[in-house]
């Protein structure tokens, strides 16, 4: 396994984006509603932060209609996963790990 180069990322770090990235890093995709409940923010607040992550190329948003209900799922992109891993490595470096 190659070591991750620690790198602070302001886009990832800002609350609650770090939390969003942390959740998405553990899965392939996560439903918008599941992220919202875990982060404990409103739909509009989550949408705003997801848009920022999407603009940075870190998150991909997919919409699908299942049983006449629209479901939105979120996934970290390869760049997002790399940025998150590097940011966590930087936090660990700061802690002294």
């Amino acid at each position, binding site marked *: 396994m190659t070591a991750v180069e620690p790198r*602070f990322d*302001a886009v990832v*770090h*800002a*609350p609650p984006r*770090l*939390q969003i990235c*942390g*959740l998405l890093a*553990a*899965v*392939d*995709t*996560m*439903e918008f*509603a*599941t992220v919202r*409940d*875990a982060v404990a923010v409103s739909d509009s607040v989550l949408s705003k932060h997801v848009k920022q992550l999407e603009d940075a190329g870190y998150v991909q948003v997919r919409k699908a209609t*299942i049983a006449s209900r629209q479901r939105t*799922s979120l996934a970290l992109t390869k760049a997002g996963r790399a940025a998150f891993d590097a940011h*966590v490595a*930087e*936090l*660990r470096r*700061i*802690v*002294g790990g």
Partner: protein
Amino acid sequence: MTGGTPLGGEPAVDPQAAAAHLAALQADRAALADRAMQPWWYDALLGLMTFGFFASYSLWFPWAPVVAVVLYGAGARWLMSVYRRLTGTWVSGDRPGPTRRAWRVWTVCSVAVLVPAMVLELLLDVRGAMAVAGAVLGIGIVLISRWWSRIYIAELRGER
């Protein structure tokens, strides 16, 4: 949770804040782990579908495997949607990380069971070989699926 913002290109995060961020991330993962295990019937259905798919080759009707592929595909999609609805997430079986060892065991077992069964059934006309292989792999996928989930949950809880 407090944190700093980059000032002059340098992150203003002190060790205590960084440790708090890391602890919060771990707590979120642990909460995710609590809902990650699929119900037993999910694996039972997966096992039955796997048995049915491979056993269809023992029916010796040319269309049976084609029907089985269609049914297996539809069933797999349905199970995927059920898992998404139950957990709000989806995780690929072959994702990188500790769960890869369960995936590798499944791949090796599948080849080890299927190759001899296909030779027996399709080349040597031993009827029922693929049905036996289907039963073995059906039980195998149930056990490996549960094992895979336990590894994943342990990883989320930081127990690995």
